[in-house]
């Protein structure tokens, strides 16, 4: 699918994302500046990580109200694919495209380290090259990744199968120790009900080549490229 990457001032992971997308699809993604409002021709819109607008007020709060976000809303409403990683996930929840919020890590520390994600379902385009309950390695690099939603929202997410990934041990056990940022119910990523919008905190684009130390994230980009 044809991909575009939305860039806000302060975003700094757009090139890693572009490398991951291009490696799988053979086609460079379109780079979209936050003042643009036309996303026509794109099948997948990616909001990468970074510190948009300096994380002022709340992480993602300013970016979520930028001109391009109305176009992202329209793209999602048309059934287009959206992937938000790290600050991109924070922007999607601030924009109301995904429910909940991302709070300061429970430890109050910025966490820059490997984590493991358990795949909660594999019958989505994003996760189709993984197996259900498989664990893969990803890199977290965030200060505010502590997912929060009220119990009613969480029960709806679980009931509708919209939890994409949970923090787990390398063996796939969901434990408090593996839940490094303190996210409620160890949630690392969630989908919209149509399974076409995915937000997650860790960075699958950081591990897409053995030269990066692993290719655990590559199946996600291969699946998107092939869809």
């Amino acid at each position: 699918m044809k991909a575009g990457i939305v860039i806000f001032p302060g975003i700094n992971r757009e090139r890693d994302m572009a490398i991951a997308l291009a490696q799988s699809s053979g086609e460079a993604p379109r780079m979209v500046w936050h003042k643009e409002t036309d996303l026509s021709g794109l099948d997948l819109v990616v909001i990468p990580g970074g510190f948009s607008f300096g994380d002022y007020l709340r992480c993602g709060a300013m970016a979520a109200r930028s001109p391009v976000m109305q176009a992202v809303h329209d793209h999602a409403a048309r059934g287009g694919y959206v992937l938000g990683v790290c600050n991109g996930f924070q922007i999607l929840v601030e924009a109301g495209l995904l429910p909940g919020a991302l709070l300061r890590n429970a430890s109050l520390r910025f966490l820059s380290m490997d984590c493991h994600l358990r795949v909660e379902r594999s019958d989505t385009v994003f996760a189709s090259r993984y197996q259900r309950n498989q664990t893969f390695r990803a890199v977290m690099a965030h200060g505010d990744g502590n997912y929060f939603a009220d119990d009613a929202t969480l029960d709806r997410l679980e009931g509708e199968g919209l939890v994409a990934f949970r923090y787990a041990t390398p063996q796939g056990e969901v434990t408090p120790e593996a839940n490094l940022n303190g996210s409620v119910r160890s949630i690392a990523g969630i989908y919209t009900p149509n399974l076409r919008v995915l937000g997650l905190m860790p960075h699958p684009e950081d591990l897409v080549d053995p030269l990066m130390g692993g290719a655990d994230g590559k199946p996600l980009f291969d699946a998107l490229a092939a869809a």
Partner: protein
Amino acid sequence: MKATVTVMLKAGVLDPQGKAIAHALGTLGFKGVEDVRAGKVIELELAETDPDRARAAAEEMARKLLANTVIESFRVSLDG
């Protein structure tokens, strides 16, 4: 007219910053601090002079941007 918007995490939302402040106060020897909650104060200088309209405008700003009502509550106060 000046409007002051106070934004606080809702009850039940973990406030690790408040917890850290409480811990530091204990370290400094302050006793009897039972709980600490940390929030934000945002001051708005508004051209509006009618208090009701100023309050309504500030509340709208708080709902749309200044507070994330998923996790935060807010209150607006007006002076002069």
